[in-house]
């Protein structure tokens, strides 16, 4: 039994045996609770308008990039392409602009996405319980919202203006989403922003309190590492591969049933080696620019972060199968159960 108080020591223990034994235990637990399944999803960026100034983000409001949001027709083209690639679980992303991508716009996007994908999640600006309920009824299964860092001081340093500067409103987002009826919630920290053991411990505490209060929700966690944007590095507390892997394994040991997401921010080699050690969901065939799949050439794109694993969905599916993993494109479908929500 690992205690939260031991996390710091475990992460700072540089012995290879420590890492290996963590991996061994994490692998056994992952197989026990998830078998060899790996769920695949892909992001689809529909807007890069942003009213927040987050110093590490490629979309932030002071960054001089071309801003636009997809029209319904453009969304259909992008989504149709992704669905054609085999993706059935789409994560719709925007920048954080309540005014330019209001709930009504998101609702429209969700409605369109539901034409193409059995499962639709959102990673957008935080909203109210009523707005989440509305989106849930439109067909949203999952909400992704990262606190980025649980260190209030550091949080204030990197989130300079905009709604994201409100630490407490963001902290309450998973709870409001759960109250809105959302079935699956992804939480996370942005590795590199702040002292990692402290952030990780705080994330675990947040997750545990959510689990207790909303036991019906399916939780997953993500550990995006701060990535350079067009070559510029922003990490003040860089997390190396060994620590990254230990974080995944520790999370599995402490939360045997919680999903762990791994994005294409990470390279192919690390992603492939992390499989089975705790990771249960991966993005595949990702493009992190608005309209990046079909509408804009690579030269015209302003990505939120640079994708490392550029393999297409089919290639990743094949690779997973070759390694005895079971790639899962849809792990559930919404079936009307006749119950009307209040």
């Amino acid at each position: 039994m690992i205690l939260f108080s031991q996390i710091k020591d475990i992460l700072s223990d540089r012995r290879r045996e420590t890492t290996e034994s963590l991996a061994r235990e994490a692998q056994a637990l992952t197989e026990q609770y998830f078998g060899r399944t790996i769920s695949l999803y892909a992001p689809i960026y529909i807007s890069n308008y942003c009213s927040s100034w987050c110093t590490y983000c490629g979309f932030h409001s002071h960054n001089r990039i071309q801003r636009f949001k997809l029209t319904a027709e453009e969304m259909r083209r992008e989504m149709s392409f992704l669905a054609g690639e085999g993706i059935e679980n789409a994560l719709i992303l925007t920048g954080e602009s309540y005014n330019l991508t209001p709930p009504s716009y998101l609702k429209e996007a969700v409605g369109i996405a539901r034409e193409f994908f059995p499962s639709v999640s959102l990673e957008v600006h935080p909203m109210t319980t009523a707005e989440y309920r509305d989106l849930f009824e439109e067909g949203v299964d999952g909400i992704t919202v990262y606190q980025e860092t649980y260190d209030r001081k550091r949080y204030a340093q990197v989130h300079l203006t905009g709604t994201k500067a409100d630490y407490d409103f963001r902290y309450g987002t998973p709870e409001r989403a759960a109250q809105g009826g959302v079935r699956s919630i992804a939480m996370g920290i942005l590795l590199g922003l702040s002292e990692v053991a402290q952030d990780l411990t705080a994330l675990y505490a947040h997750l545990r309190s959510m689990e207790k209060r909303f036991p019906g929700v399916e939780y997953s966690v993500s550990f995006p590492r701060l990535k350079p944007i067009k070559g510029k590095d922003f990490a003040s507390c860089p997390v190396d591969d060994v620590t990254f892997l230990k974080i995944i394994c520790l999370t599995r040991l402490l939360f045997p049933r919680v999903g762990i997401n791994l994005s294409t921010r990470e390279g192919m080699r690390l992603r492939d080696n992390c499989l089975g050690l705790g990771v249960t969901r991966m993005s595949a065939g990702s493009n992190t620019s608005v309209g990046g799949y079909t509408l804009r050439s690579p030269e015209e794109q302003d990505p939120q972060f640079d994708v490392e694993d550029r393999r297409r969905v089919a290639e990743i599916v094949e690779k997973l199968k070759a390694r005895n993993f079971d790639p899962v494109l849809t792990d559930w479908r919404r079936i009307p159960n006749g119950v009307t929500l209040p």
Partner: protein
Amino acid sequence: MSIMQTIQSAQPALENDPLRIADRQFTSRFLLGTGKFKNKKDLSAAIAASRTQIVTVALRRIDLERHEENILEYIPKDVTLLVNTSGARNAQEAVRLARLGRESGCGNWVKVEVINDSKYLLPDNAQTVKATEILAAEGFVVLPYMYPELYTARALEKAGAAAVMPLGSLIGSRQGLRTREFINILINEIDVPIIVDAGLGAPSQATEAMELGAAAVLVNTAIANAAHPATLAKAFALAVEAGRLAYMSSPAAASDSANASSPLTGFLYEQ
């Protein structure tokens, strides 16, 4: 090589997984004791129904006043006879019984059983080790019955035992795997086959032993006393197969053959 590559192995199948003891191979992992059967026909039917390939027999003075049917008439020739030294109270008597058994011309496989306690019928581990040393040196294939205890098991293995037969619980008690944790230690630490003997009263208990990684089980009383011995013998044989298949599908069995030198995290240090 990554762990993902090492854990891909052939689909386990019973056909490819014979029980190996000394120089023989057996497709059945169920051993039948032949004592206490109400009649020899029941015994014969139990052997046939369970497809056992190893049965134990004991040696007794011939009762000259009364004609007894020869038990060997009821045991097919291709079944390996394991001569039980039951009745021996010390190593010397066990050795004598084993030598007598060999003179019958029915082979040199012997189950060393030394019991000098009539209340619990627990085996005397120290005397068992002594008898095993002597008999193994004389070329016997020795399968000692023992109380599951690591040091004794090691001594038996060193003495040349072909398999080790720890008791699951007291003889005839039908209490199942009361010694589970200790048998588990023997399974992990001893290289010769571990055959769970004594105390198994239900097929589910045999499955439990096999799931744990026992190489085989031996059952006698439960079957001999059943209303339908042949039916229960078959149930035990199936239970043993079920348990073996479960064990074969477990990571524990896979790790037996896995390459121990492929750490999960080695890739982190390669460049």
